[in-house]
């Protein structure tokens, strides 16, 4: 058998063997081809999510093209230059400086383009200035083993208030006053007049649709990561720091909050809900929470 035929059989055999293995697993677990989704990126329901996905897709097609080209050239060389029955000397070459320069500069340029495209999205998403946002909705979120604690400054969801004005509606807190129970999740100073209308809950975050949301993210114990897969939001919560997280929901509905940074025994279960509502619905919901 010539080495080329053998190579072909090896590749074909590997593909057939893999397919047979997958078929056996599918038969055993009663899977169908539909059990294996390929278009897996979760639906996007936030304003900058599409831009992030755009870069993802751009890199995907670019890396796919390079991947296919590299593997195809590799396989072609293996077929083309497999040692035959009568070995000859190989082509004697130590390389070529021109081609080295070409394949140094081209990848460098590609990387530069990806960097520049990424930079603008990154700055818009992570470096927003909250004071400049129009009609912001501000909410205080704190990670704690193993729950997401949420605080609203009051039961209002009206538009037109500035970020600075909203921030004054939050009552003073001191983390030393955080109790273990549910009474004082954030360590609110009960003597502060603003404390009367602060709303504290666990696990479910209500936000308005089509308005920029500012999450004041903190942690009360270990690192957590506030992950909203459908909003393309992820930010670690760091004890001792308050980090601003920005996103603008574009669709009403209910989605999941996950913790993406290992935080201990029940890390897996540190999930929550994010519910996007119209301003009017949101205000109704917040008033109900305040009443409770």
């Amino acid at each position, binding site marked *: 058998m010539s080495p080329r035929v053998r190579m072909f059989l090896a590749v074909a055999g590997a593909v057939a063997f893999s397919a047979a293995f997958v078929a056996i697993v599918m038969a055993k*677990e009663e899977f169908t081809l539909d059990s294996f*989704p390929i278009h897996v990126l979760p639906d996007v329901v936030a304003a900058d999510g599409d831009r992030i996905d755009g870069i993802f897709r751009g890199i995907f097609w670019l890396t796919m093209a390079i*991947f296919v080209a590299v593997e195809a*050239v590799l396989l072609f*060389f293996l077929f083309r230059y497999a040692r035959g029955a009568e*070995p000859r000397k190989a082509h004697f070459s*130590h390389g070529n400086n021109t081609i080295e320069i070409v394949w140094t500069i081209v990848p460098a340029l590609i990387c530069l383009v990806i*960097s520049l495209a990424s930079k603008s999205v990154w700055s818009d998403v992570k470096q927003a200035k909250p004071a400049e946002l129009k009609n912001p909705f501000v909410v205080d979120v704190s990670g704690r083993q193993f729950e997401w604690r949420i605080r609203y400054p009051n039961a209002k969801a009206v538009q037109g208030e500035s970020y600075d004005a909203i921030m004054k509606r939050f009552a003073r807190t001191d983390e030393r006053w955080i109790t273990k129970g549910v009474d004082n999740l954030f360590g609110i100073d009960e003597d502060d007049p603003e404390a009367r209308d602060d709303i504290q809950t666990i696990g479910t975050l209500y936000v308005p649709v089509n308005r920029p949301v500012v999450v004041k993210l903190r942690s009360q114990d270990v690192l957590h990561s506030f992950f909203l897969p459908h909003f393309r939001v992820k930010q670690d919560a760091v004890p001792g720091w308050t980090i601003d997280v920005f996103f603008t929901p574009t669709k009403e509905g209910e989605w999941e909050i996950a913790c993406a940074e290992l935080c201990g025994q029940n890390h897996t279960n540190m999930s929550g809900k994010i519910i996007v509502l119209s301003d009017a619905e949101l205000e109704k919901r917040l008033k109900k929470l305040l009443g409770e």
Partner: protein
Amino acid sequence: MSADSKHGHDHGHAHDHGHDHGHGHGHGHEEPSFIRKYIFSEDHKVIGVQFLIVSLLFLAVGGLLALAVRYQIAWPNQGIPILNQLYGENVVKDQKFYNMLFTMHATFMIFFAIIPLLVGFFGNYLIPLKIGARDMAFPFLNMLSFWTALPAGIIMIAALFVSGGDSATYASGGGWTNYPTLSEVGDGIAGGKGQTLWLISLIVLGASSIMGAINYLTTIINMRAPGMSFHRLPLSIWSLFITSILVLFATPVLTSALGMLVFDREVGTTFFLNGPKWPGAEGQPLLWQHIFWFYSHPAVYIMILPAMGVVSDILPVFARKPIFGYKAMAYAMAGIAGLGFIVWGHHMFQSGMNPVLGTTFMISTMFIAVPSAIKTFNWLGTLWGGQIQFTTPMLHALSFVAMFAIGGLSGIYMASTPVDIFIHDTYFIVAHIHYVLFGGSLFGIFAGITFWFPKIFGRMMSERFGKVHFFLTFIFFNLTFFAMHVVGAGGMMRRIANPTHYEFLQPLQPWNILMTYAAIALGLSQIIFFANFVLSIFMGEKASANPWRSTTLEWHTSTTPPPHGNFDKQPHVYHGPYEFSSPLTEEDFLPQWQKLGEAQPAKAGGHGH
């Protein structure tokens, strides 16, 4: 059985012969006792083989832990076979136990399998042989380096059985990155004493790495054979040279972080503590991440550069062609290492680090793709116009090139800061690291072991079993890890014990189950390798001095396996390391030791028959 004993006898005889030879050339001392020869040996080759065998055992332990991890992900909270009996079902079902499993899997694989195989084994075995030296510059320090690494491993193994006072807490459970403040919590959430043992073990191991690195650098700089200029060094030696620089500069930094964490845990300092749980503490949790990644990113290159070097040595031998772009290859490795020190922040894009810094680290990270691309293209260039032989080492080396391309390309996704927002800490990064460390490093290690086995043990490994092992490993590796890209793009977080807890992850569960089946098959396939390895030591076909018809000095030793002292007389080097198919000679290879115009001194096959 009779065949066994016959071969066993031959093997013993070969050793005696080797030593006679050494004595014949006035190598100096009396026949050392068994203990001095095989246990507390100062021979770099014995130390290399000690690293090889111990690391392969750790590789097996790490692999078994990986299977336990996969089992839990596919069938969450049902307990795990074997471990149920070992620890008790209630303990295993606790998610804390799962945290321990993946933490210790990564710890054993990174610190006790991949790094010691690449640096401890290849470094020790190859450096003196390939540069034409009798041994390392500091043989005693070399011995000490192994005998420091082994206790570190024993401490880490012991941690698996040290309970933190809480029934489900064994070893460390904070992830191999062990970020504070989780890794500081004293109540058993991240392991009790097991966590402290983890830190101490790595401090001890770091000392071993530093000893090794000093030795390698000194040896390569000072002990090269006459004619062995830096630009005639085999690329494996270039890679180990650069790796040693990384080890020397990065490891002490990690040691400082480990030390501070030990102090935080055991003495009551607050270097990394902050927040209401620790009133009055003014430390910085992110400080750990900066210091840890300042070591651990270069460590990623410590785990890939030697494999690149090994593959760069093997491809020319079986393509019968000089490496394409030798200098570009050497400088690209130096470029990777240099950039490796200014990219650590890409692990911290979502950590709360200033996003402006994120952009800086993104750009430096992107440019690591450039030397990586240069290397890949040069490997392809080496194959172009070759006379390719598909031996087992070559198959592993080729799949290194094919798989490293995937691991390299998937890195670009994480390097892009906005894309990283979504895929950070998902299975996408798990896929990436495994394509680099298994698809890359481990295939490189398999290539190296099968390539140098004849020199190390004087016998050939079975090609047939070698190929079967390669074939199965290649297939099941891809079936296991490729789908991780898919579930990662679906948003599945790493380090979660039960993906089905999340609605948005439930449709991905069949992928997880398929991966687990493939992982089990991948694990079983390794039995073939271990069997081939062990049986070939005793029963393999006798190897000739230069079975692959290679050009570098390790194939020029006075006997096979080489005696203590390696060469019967000082070798001289006349050529670059990869002069295959040179028009200057009849043969299709021109060894480094062969002076042109001078007949090759008759070197019999086998060892001096």
